């Protein structure tokens, strides 16, 4: 198949980058005239096709190829720009294309009629260009450039509705917090450059060479590793730098689905996978801890949310935490795997949510109602109105919750199991990590279940309106088709025919990294069971609690006792887990809002105040000193004039006195 078009993967991946760029430029030139988005669409289709047939299929599982061109020389060192195509990059690029394509199609319907649509397509193409460039960069500096460009694109897209105050606040926040990370990244680059004199990934992490450039057990390596991780933390919204992602939901939902769920936020993970050889134990441990913390906290926050997109945002954060853990435990293959699967189902989730919100918004508009179309409490029982959406969403959620037959199942297992192996290899408190991860995945199942039930089951608050002729119908095909496509992608077959064993998925086989610790076969049995069980349990609870929020069973049932028990169990569960966890989540969320985010705001406020103080200092002390000096000189000038009082004899007296004094001084001394 790699004879396709007879172009080398290098050229192909360059083309993949260039098409969106081309689209961007054309649309920038056209300006308001390009509202259809066809150009962007064509661009991304071309990229997708080429990246699949030109880069991925030929590049996959073959030796990594790279090509570099001299960029500029500074001092003795020459920097190159280049393209690196190996499994990792090819996969990442493909994922981006495959996700971006449906989102583009979806957007055509979703964004139709928006006044600023031409900017939308422009920004979207820009983002695709940057993201695709990021994936195949050879040079760390080059990577950094694209890294910031995606941030810039996301800034533009979050603030797409720039007249909305919250939106512009959000995009400012997003960019600034990402800037913190970027500085970390930059410092990392600087350190690497200072010690190795080059930034080419190929030369830096050259496995073949006998003497690796980097001795990772040096303090600077630790420092650099942490710096890189800081960068990843900001991009991938790791605690405590995650605060920007929930706010970023101010952007159009399609944007959230592409950028803030599937691709850009995953760039952090991708970066860590790229520079993985740099990390030593210390750094990795830090990554694991932060990852776990993020996964847990975000999952808890998600429990209590009422805003659909917020829930999904937090779930994204938590899933990113999973990936981080994957990297941290050294199984970055698993992390990449989860990244891929997550891209599909999370994107799908957002698209479905988008469809729902779209309809709700329409209803709101038509019926002149005043409610937040994203608020769960206003939505319900939609499965009758939009069954297909419902179907897609269910698949996506199942995948997220990690039910068998879904891709999520495989990837999540891969991480959790490896984590367990890692923990049991190290022993001691490390076991806490996999345990926490399992709890998190159960929580995940629960909150996503809650979302599904609340949205699609129960009774719809605004039925009455629909009775009165208001149409409330399925999403249009332009939106459905991408969703269906992604839904297909969220199932296991895409990744390999083995239902249970993630080791047999082609991604894992290709990217396989041999870990220091042994594989525990029994783990492959009970952990999936545990996860699945937990997931099912979570859904049951959710079902019982949100759909039939009363005891389901009648008296004269043969299963009374059991049912009662179950009821008790339910109540028990209800009291202990559900209520408890929801309360907890509320509290924690409040904590997050007011303390973590509050800290961010506090910090910005502090900087503001500091700046005011500094300015005061500048104006009154430094400049004041300058003026004081001037005035002092001026005043001395004034004093000197006292001699000139116009009295002749005073003059003479003055002059002669000084002479006499001089004489006296000279004689006496």
């Amino acid at each position, binding site marked *: 198949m790699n004879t396709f078009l007879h172009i080398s993967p290098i050229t192909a991946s360059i083309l993949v980058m260039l098409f969106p760029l081309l689209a961007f430029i054309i649309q920038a030139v056209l300006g308001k005239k390009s509202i259809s988005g066809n150009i962007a669409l064509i661009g991304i289709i071309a990229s997708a096709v080429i990246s699949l047939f030109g880069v991925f299929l030929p590049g996959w599982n073959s030796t990594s190829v790279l090509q570099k061109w001299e960029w500029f020389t*500074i*001092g003795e060192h020459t920097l190159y720009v280049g393209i690196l195509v190996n499994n990792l990059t090819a996969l990442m690029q493909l994922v981006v294309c495959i996700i971006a394509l449906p989102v583009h199609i979806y957007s055509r319907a979703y964004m139709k009629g928006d006044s600023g649509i031409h900017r939308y397509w422009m920004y979207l193409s820009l983002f695709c260009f940057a993201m695709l460039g990021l994936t195949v960069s050879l040079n760390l500096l080059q990577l950094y450039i694209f890294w910031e460009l995606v941030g*810039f694109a996301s800034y533009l897209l979050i603030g797409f509705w720039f007249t909305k105050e919250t939106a*512009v606040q959000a995009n400012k926040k997003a960019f*600034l917090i990402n800037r913190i990370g970027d500085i970390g990244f930059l*410092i990392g*680059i600087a350190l690497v450059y*200072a010690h190795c004199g080059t930034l080419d990934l190929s030369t830096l992490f050259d496995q073949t060479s006998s003497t690796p450039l980097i001795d990772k057990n040096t303090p600077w390596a630790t420092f650099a590793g942490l710096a890189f991780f800081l960068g990843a933390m900001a991009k991938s919204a790791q605690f405590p730098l995650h605060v920007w992602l929930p706010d970023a939901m101010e952007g159009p939902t399609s944007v959230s689905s592409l950028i803030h769920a599937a691709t850009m936020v995953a760039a952090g993970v991708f970066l860590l996978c790229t520079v993985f050889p740099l990390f030593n134990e210390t750094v990795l441990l830090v990554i694991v801890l932060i990852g776990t913390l993020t996964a847990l906290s975000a999952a808890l926050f998600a429990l209590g949310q009422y805003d659909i997109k917020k829930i999904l945002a937090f779930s994204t954060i938590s899933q990113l935490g999973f990936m981080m853990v994957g990297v941290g435990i050294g199984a970055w293959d698993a992390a990449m795997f989860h990244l891929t699967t997550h891209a599909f189902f999370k994107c799908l989730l957002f698209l479905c949510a988008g469809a729902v919100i779209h309809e709700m918004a329409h209803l709101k508009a038509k019926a002149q109602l005043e409610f937040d179309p994203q608020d769960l409490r206003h939505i319900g029982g939609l499965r009758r109105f939009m069954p297909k959406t419902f179907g897609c969403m269910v698949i996506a959620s199942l995948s997220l919750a990690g039910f068998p037959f879904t891709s999520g199942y495989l990837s999540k297992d891969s991480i959790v199991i490896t984590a367990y192996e890692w923990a049991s290899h190290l022993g001691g408190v490390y076991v806490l990590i996999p345990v926490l991860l399992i709890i998190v995945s159960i929580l995940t199942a629960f909150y996503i279940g809650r979302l599904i039930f609340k949205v699609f089951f129960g009774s719809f608050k605004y039925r009455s309106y629909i009775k009165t002729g208001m149409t409330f119908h399925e999403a249009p095909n332009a939106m459905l088709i991408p969703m269906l496509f992604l839904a297909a992608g969220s199932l296991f077959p895409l990744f390999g025919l083995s239902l249970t064993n993630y080791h047999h998925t082609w991604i894992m086989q290709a990217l396989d990294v041999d870990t220091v610790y042994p594989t525990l076969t029994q783990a492959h049995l009970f952990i999936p069971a545990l996860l699945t069980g937990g997931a099912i349990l979570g859904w049951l609870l959710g079902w019982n609690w949100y759909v039939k929020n009363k005891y389901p069973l009648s008296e004269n049932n043969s299963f009374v006792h059991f049912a009662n028990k179950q009821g008790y169990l339910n109540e028990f569960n209800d009291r202990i887990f559900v209520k408890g966890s929801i309360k907890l989540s509320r509290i924690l969320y409040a904590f997050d809002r007011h303390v973590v985010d509050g800290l961010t705001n506090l910090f910005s406020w502090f900087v503001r105040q500091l700046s005011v103080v*500094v300015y005061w200092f500048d104006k009154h002390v430094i400049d004041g000193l300058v003026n004081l000096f001037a005035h002092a000189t001026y005043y001395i000038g004034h004093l000197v004039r006292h001699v000139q009082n116009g009295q002749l004899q005073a003059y003479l007296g003055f002059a002669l006195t000084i002479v006499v004094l001089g004489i006296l001084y000279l004689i006496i001394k």
Partner: protein
Amino acid sequence: MGVLSILIFLPLVATLLILTLPSSAKATYKYIALGFTFLQFGLSLYLYGNFDATLGGIQQLDAYQFVEQLSWIRMDLGAIGKLEIDYLIGVDGISLPLIVLSTLVMLMGVGASWNIDKNPKGYFALLMILNTAVMGIFSALDFFLFYVFYEVMLLPLYFLIGIWGGERREYAAIKFFIYTLLGSVLMLLVIVGLYFSVINPVTGAHTFNMLHMMNPANYVDGSFFAYITNYHEVFGIPARLIGFIVLFFAFAIKVPIVPLHTWLPDAHVEAPTPVSIILAGILLKVGGYGIIRVCYSIFPDIAAYTNWWLALIGVISILYGALNALAQKDLKRMIAYSSVSHMGFVLLGIASLTAEGLSGAMFQMVSHGFLSAALFFLVGVLYDRVHDRYIYNFRGLASLMPKYTAYVAIAFFASLGLPGFSAFIGEAFVIIGAFNAESMSTGVPRWMAIGGSIGILLSAAYFLWTLQRMFFGQTRLKGGQAWQEALTDLNIREQVILFPALALALLLGIMPSLVFGNLNASVLQLIELIKP
């Protein structure tokens, strides 16, 4: 009359032309000025094109290009020997980018002063004199010549600010003048000292030739600034250290560094738009150029000895300027302080004494050159429309003047160091160089580099804040309806001026080799000179 001399003295011709033309022809002045600056720009491009990047320059004359040497002043002062002053000009990798930059910024400046109606004759005449002085500074290799141009530069500026400036123009003008003169008179003393310490190896006479001053062999033993066997001390401080400090002080005022920067906000805010463009675009660079060409090249030993402090000053300027910018309510003042912050990077890079840092600093100077010019021009656009710069008086301009907003956004992001634009390369390599300094053991610790990188964050903060505060959100203006009409979008002329600058920022951001290519040899040479 070599091409370089033509480049320098062309504007003088323009001045004479303008002065001789009767006031009835005042409409033509700006076209004359524009024409001559265009010619200059062409010449500078010619220089750029015919520049041999392999030659280092710095302290060896044969490695300079477009050199012209005429004996200018020969005076027999009897007991104290012959006064030997040459008209010696030349270009090396350090000065070439700045020359090209200056011509470009001058072009922008002339374009920006298109609708100056108050006494255009004097205005353009002074502008052209300034132009000459600037070109002279960047190409003079004889210290006397350098000093002459350096001082001549001040006079036109005083009047440009003082006559065409804002309300507090008198204060700003004299403040600027006094500040700079204070630096330069002390510099004059050091020049005299150097004159007596250095002899021209060929003629054996004392000389003002900078290149001779850079060569330790030419120093007279026991002279005041002698390299070796120098016992001269003033109040216990070695003479050479004093000399370096004084020269640094003189140029640091121009850069400007904290705490010698307070003339800058006043001068920028009070100056008319074209003048602030030139101030920020060219004159600040004179400081950086002076530090490299004079302080570091003539006192390399001291440079290596003091760079810790210089770097510290640089970091302080970065953070201090950024914080000040964050606190501003006047847009122009904000940008002025941002210049302080960005020029801090230059100092940090220079002080790092690494090839990366120095090149980064040079690049930062170039990029800051036209970026700050563009920024000031943008402020000027707003000020022309409604004569107000107060950030809080504007809201949601984006929906009112989309083109303008687009340009502002690009300019802001370019200067807050968004990759793909030139400022990023400059700042990134300053940081990288500062990090590298420890590996090169030039004595600049890493925490300074980190401090610098925090400056990048802050710059993002104030630019984004301004962007959000002024341009986004619902349109609300202090001036109400009147402003609504006044605030028309950019016209063709303004776009013609803005577009090249921003395009150049992008171009250099993508192909830094355009600058680095010509820089490298000289930078390496300088590093060699400083590291014996």
